[in-house]
């Protein structure tokens, strides 16, 4: 399978702190990859480097076969590398529907609308609302929405550009334990139809075990384990530095 994303010795230092150290990783099309690691291990830095928010100190990023190191988030989004945020980044004064229309309007002008020329943004927005179960919040202003709903909206917005690859930063944070699985089912159900690669940061090992084929474990800016999910989660180093000796259900803090 072709690699959609590839990083080569990607490094980012902030003064004396190394947030990403020579990260080389390739992600195949259509795979679902989990990223685990304690707080400060470099997961979000990795996302920020890959999406162009941060410029790497050294190393390269390739997306869809072309080198994109140093490109802006805007350019990468237009190429189909889209992301959602740990803290929902939505347009507070717009309604749920309008939030999606913003993205779909941009997608239309960038000719990446989900079904290309056939679907009008208004129609696609309604479809997305339906897929994410957000219809009842259609006319609600985003700032009035509950955190879990904002989270869903944030992810739905990342889908408006019809991504080739989707990066989700802690999609289930701020969502109650019993709702985490249904949220993941919903999100992956909305995406999976189109063979999109998904990479998501997650602290809940049960979620990681259930939804990913492959796991990247981060520790102090490095990938300490990379492979099939079950193998990585059993890895002694991962158990020691990330999951914790007791293999606790959720590791929020070291």
């Amino acid at each position, binding site marked *: 399978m072709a690699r959609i994303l590839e990083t080569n010795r990607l490094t980012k230092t902030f003064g004396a702190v190394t947030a990403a150290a020579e990260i080389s990783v390739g992600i195949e099309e259509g795979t679902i990859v989990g990223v685990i690691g304690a707080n400060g291990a470099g997961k979000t830095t990795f996302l920020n480097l890959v999406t162009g928010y941060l410029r790497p100190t050294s190393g390269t990023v390739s997306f869809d076969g072309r080198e994109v190191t140093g490109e802006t988030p805007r350019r990468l989004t237009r190429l189909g590398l889209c992301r959602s945020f740990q803290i929902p980044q939505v347009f507070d004064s717009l309604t749920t529907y309008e939030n999606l229309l913003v993205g779909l*309007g941009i997608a*239309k002008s960038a000719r990446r609308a989900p079904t290309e020329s056939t679907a009008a*943004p208004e129609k696609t927005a309604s479809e997305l609302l339906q897929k994410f179960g957000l219809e009842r919040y259609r006319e609600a202003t985003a700032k009035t929405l509950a955190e879990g709903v904002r989270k869903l909206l944030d992810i739905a917005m990342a889908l408006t550009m019809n991504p080739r690859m989707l990066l989700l930063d802690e999609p289930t944070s701020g969502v109650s334990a019993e709702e985490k699985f249904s949220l993941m089912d919903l999100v992956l159900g909305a995406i999976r139809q189109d063979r999109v690669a998904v990479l998501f940061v997650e602290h809940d090992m049960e979620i990681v075990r259930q939804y990913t084929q492959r796991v990247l474990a981060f520790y102090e800016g490095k990938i300490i384990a990379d492979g099939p999910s079950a193998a990585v989660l059993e890895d002694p180093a991962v158990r020691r530095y990330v999951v914790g000796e007791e293999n606790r259900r959720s590791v929020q803090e070291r």
Partner: protein
Amino acid sequence: MKPGRRFLVLVSAVVVVSIAAGPFLPPWALFLITVSIAKGLVALGLLLLIRTGLVSFGQGLYFAIGGYAAGTASQWLGGGDAVVMVAIGALLSAVAAAALGILLARYRTIFFAMLSLAFSMILYGLLVKSSALGSTDGFNVAPSTVAGVKAGQFGYLVFLLTVGSAAFSCVLLDAYLRSHLGRLAPAVRDNELRVEYMGASVRNIVHLNLVIAAALAGLGGGLAALTVGHVDPEMAYWTTSGEFVFIAILSGTASVLAPFLGALLLELLRSLAYEHAPNTWQLIMGSAMLLVILFLPSGLWSIFERRRRIA
């Protein structure tokens, strides 16, 4: 009725009433209304900027460019038609904003406000120093025709042109704000990072809206110059720019019609205050602003919005 259609009906009604009532209005009222609408056009541009999250304290720059361009055009054309004059004013203002926007679009909040103010004060300084443009006195502006009609009833003709320009601008800007491109304005105000992460350029959106706001201010400046029959450097002075911000805040940004209501009320209030309290009229204006901010923080237009919600 759809909101879009209700809006069109409302605009058409205002235009028809204006055309019909115009000839019966006393000259002072006609003058006051025309000037208000011209200033309302500048505030309409500010409405767009405020929706984009920016407050410009330098719209006087484009107001003056519009006025001076219209005036200069009429001198060169030896009279000339009013429509051509205001069109040139709006166009030149847009060109100026396209150039200055390269720098302005990089700034936000107080830095944007101060930089826009600085540009307008530079123009003020230049106008005061240029004797060819009449220095501090400015010069008179007198077109020979309005849309081809010989200027007999001049006040009424300029009034019609102003009402027409305002209605045209309102309909266009309203359509723009409802479009995919226009919807990016509040998105930029709410979250610039997300706009970039959705694939649009924040700087380009800001730049475009600066140019639109400047064109509206230039149009307003040209119309004001025709109405008053005179331009002077005060048009670019910071107090003039401040007045436009005053109108925009007084009016609120909920509707494209709000700035015209706000401008009219401000002119009326000022005329009354000036007549009845010539020494303390600023005090009255300040108190009015205070009351609006305290009791109608979303501007005068929120009165209508509130009623609609109850109904």
